[in-house]
């Protein structure tokens, strides 16, 4: 065991200099000089042909995401599209950005690590209702409370798609799935209530079949400095066809936007609004500017580094260890 071991075995990519690019800084301004910006086109964002069933609501979400990226034009390489596991979670393959298809239910902590370590990125997460509210429910709550900077779209079809029709936490009472062939008996979870109670700082609701509305929600979500969640109804034509007909004027339904006089800064009011009978309201239920985890951790780094005013990492380590001689 030699004290030189670290250096001897240095990783080929390691860098002698101390200008560590890994330095974590607080959320940086995302603006980049205009000349650097090649305008992103939709075709550059297109990737593999989606393998979703024809008619699946998820196509609509994908189209809006690509359209929004084209419009908002962030640097291509700074977009990261993340997902869990589910039909909806195949999303990253269908858009040409850095993409990760992580584990069922665990993508929010993955995104948390990425967001805190790399506050310079635009992080978008796409997950299903099973992923977000069943196996991943706890992470959603804690991400909301910690206000980690990212935009999350829950593509809620009120059923497990990929595993072929089991009851999901948002399946309504009476829904006949393969695990409840006699009709589900358990009251569905209300995602908006859950998110508001958890302290989410941006909570919106939309539906994949209303592209303009969804576009507006996603843009606002992207602009939000913090944890933004869009609960987006997205029909599974295979296992729950017609689930959202009641939101569709052309199918005899009603698309009610959040009333203009709703105070989006009042969480109890947002909670009450979320009580409305199905299909409920659509729009932004709640928004609040709050310190993000990225900011508070960034501030911690700045303050800590001030203590050793700019010493090289090796000097700082030496000084820390000297306390133990």
């Amino acid at each position, binding site marked *: 065991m030699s004290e030189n071991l670290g250096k001897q075995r240095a990783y080929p990519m390691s860098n002698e200099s101390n200008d560590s*690019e890994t330095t974590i800084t607080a959320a940086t301004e995302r603006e980049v000089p205009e000349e650097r910006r090649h305008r992103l086109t939709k075709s550059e964002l297109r990737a593999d042909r989606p393998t979703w069933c024809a008619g699946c609501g998820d196509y609509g979400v994908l189209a809006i995401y690509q359209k929004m990226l084209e419009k908002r034009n962030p640097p291509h390489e700074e977009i990261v599209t993340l997902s869990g596991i589910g039909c909806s979670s195949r999303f990253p393959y269908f858009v040409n950005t850095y993409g990760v298809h992580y584990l069922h239910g665990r993508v929010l*902590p993955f995104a*948390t690590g990425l967001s805190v370590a790399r506050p310079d990125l635009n992080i978008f997460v796409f997950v299903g209702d099973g992923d977000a509210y069943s196996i991943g429910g706890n992470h959603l709550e804690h991400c909301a409370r910690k206000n980690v900077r990212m935009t999350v779209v829950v593509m809620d079809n009120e059923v497990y798609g990929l595993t072929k029709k089991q009851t999901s936490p948002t399946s309504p009472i009476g829904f006949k799935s393969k695990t409840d062939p006699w009709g589900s008996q358990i009251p569905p979870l209300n995602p908006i209530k859950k998110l508001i109670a958890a302290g989410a700082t941006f909570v919106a609701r939309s539906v994949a079949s209303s592209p303009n509305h969804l576009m507006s929600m996603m843009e606002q979500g992207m602009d939000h400095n913090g944890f933004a969640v869009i609960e987006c109804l997205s029909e599974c034509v295979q296992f729950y066809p017609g689930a959202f007909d009641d939101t569709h004027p052309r199918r005899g339904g009603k698309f009610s936007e959040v009333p203009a006089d709703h105070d989006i800064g009042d969480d109890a009011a947002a909670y009450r609004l979320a009580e409305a009978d199905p299909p409920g309201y659509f729009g932004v239920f709640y928004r609040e500017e709050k310190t993000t985890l990225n900011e508070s951790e960034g501030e911690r780094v700045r303050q800590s580094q001030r203590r050793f005013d700019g010493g090289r990492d090796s000097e700082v*380590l030496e000084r820390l260890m000297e306390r133990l001689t």
Partner: protein
Amino acid sequence: MSQLSSQMQEGPGEVASPPGKRLEEAVLRIAGNSQDGIQSIGVMLARLAGRSDMEVMTYMTIPATISGGASIFQVHMGTGEILSPGDDADILVVFYQHSYDRHLPSLRDGGLLLYDSSHVEPDNEGLQTRGIKSMGLPITELTIETVGGSGKQKGKNIYLLGLLANLFHFDLGKARSLVEARFRKQGDSVVRNALLALEAGWAYSLGELSSEYRLCPAETRGVNKVTMTGNQALAYGIIAAGVRFGAGYPITPWTDTMEQLRQELPFFGGTFLQTEDELAAISAAIGAAYGGVVAMTGTSGPGLSLYSEAISFAVMAEIPLLIVDVQRGGPSTGLPTNVEQSDLELACYGAHGDSPRVVMAPARAEECFYLAIEAVDIAYRYSLPVVFLSDQAIATRIESFKMPKPDRCMQLIVSDRKPRPYHKPYPLDSVTRHVAPGTRLEDGAYPHVTGLEHDEYGYPSVNPEMHTAMTRKRHKKLDLLASELPVPEVDGPMEGEILIVGWGSTEGVIRKAVDRLRSDVSGVGGLHLRHLSPLPPGLTEIFDRFERIYVVEMNDGGRYGCGQLGRMLRMETCCPRIQGINKTEGLSFRVDEIVDRIREPRGAEASNVRESRQTASLSHE
């Protein structure tokens, strides 16, 4: 067992040194209640010895409940290499009658007993028979006298520290500065009281004892030493390894490394997050690693189980990641504050699918530092998760070792985010190199990372040949690493009768056992493994040269008469001569337990040092 008196010797003839005998080493055990600050006096004494150029190793027990209870702290210090916290004590300090009753047997014959005369009544006759010197000290009373009633509990241990510093002839100035540093944050009056207690203890007259416990000047005099626990060394090693992101959830005995990283990583521009659970911790670390920031997560037993699914992802997606497990007694919640080495199989095999990963284990606190650097290096060179298996004994014991030179060993791993023409993350013929988001790819095709089987571009593939090739590739990385590892060195002759193999925190006791056995067995070798998966090359050849192979482990002797490493070595070498020496008492091995077991070999079945009579045979009721 350190032999205090038998190894007394004259001072090395320096003119300035006062006359009298000198000790090469001494084992001191302090027994009381955890509320008495046993731990804190032990730590300061260890650091004082370190500052006095001594080698040090400590050992302590922690009561299982938060409200405290009986506790011991043992310090082994000396001027040669100190390999273990010591079996029996040369000097025993007891605060209470229960401490006396319980720990007197661990004081060697001819040793020294110090006791608080306000609480303990020793059996003088018994002591005499065993040749034990004893001295009653009115510790409680004298402390009250010195610092007043209110500071009583706090002062007692500092008083004792002063007394012991004097006994061992340590420097009062060094002791003062340690005490000052320890209490500085609590304000001037606390410091003042503490110094009062320290000096009162120092001034206590030791009579004839005063010249008997002087330690030799150290061989390593002048070498700058640090004195710290394995968990502290690990935290610094993680920083030196280049880790700049960590995430974890509290669990004993991992927690204090995590607390230190949370506080100190920001000094290096890094962050450590306390997450909602272990599933989130490892996922956050994988997320940061994907982002190009060197990342780690850490836990103890139960948390490693919870990591399994995500480890399987890191294997599949070939994400470099350091995963620390500070082992404790298991299974399940087990014995949270005791030592055991029973997470090895989980570390090697605990994830679904073919999930090859690297597993390493440090043998002492110093190695927690350097091996963490090597572990991260391997994680990046082979792009895979590395499990670092520490244990409760290493984590909590204090050792002194040469101050590392960060300017020479610090590792910086920086993700290169310069634009590239294109990127193929998973080439079949070379090791995976990830490119972090933020890196512009000029062909405009951005790669995916997925838990699904995938092709060389990271795109999902169910192609049968692709799955075969990728599965092979993930395995081959271990073959490649194994081929690059050196054949491990045998401590002792290259062939002979007995080879004693070990891993982790037992290194010191095993080396002592090897030394001890040399006196009556010809050809005794020791082999301590740091790389557990893949195992280093050459083991079959080494084993071939010894008649009996003993694998010493703190886990159960299992079905083949050996423990978890023993079984892995059977698999590796097909050597049927492997026998286990196993202990599952939640306590570290004593040297004599190993020596006795080898001198009186039993059937392979009974590999545990103490086989319970009741379970020798088990029946349906």
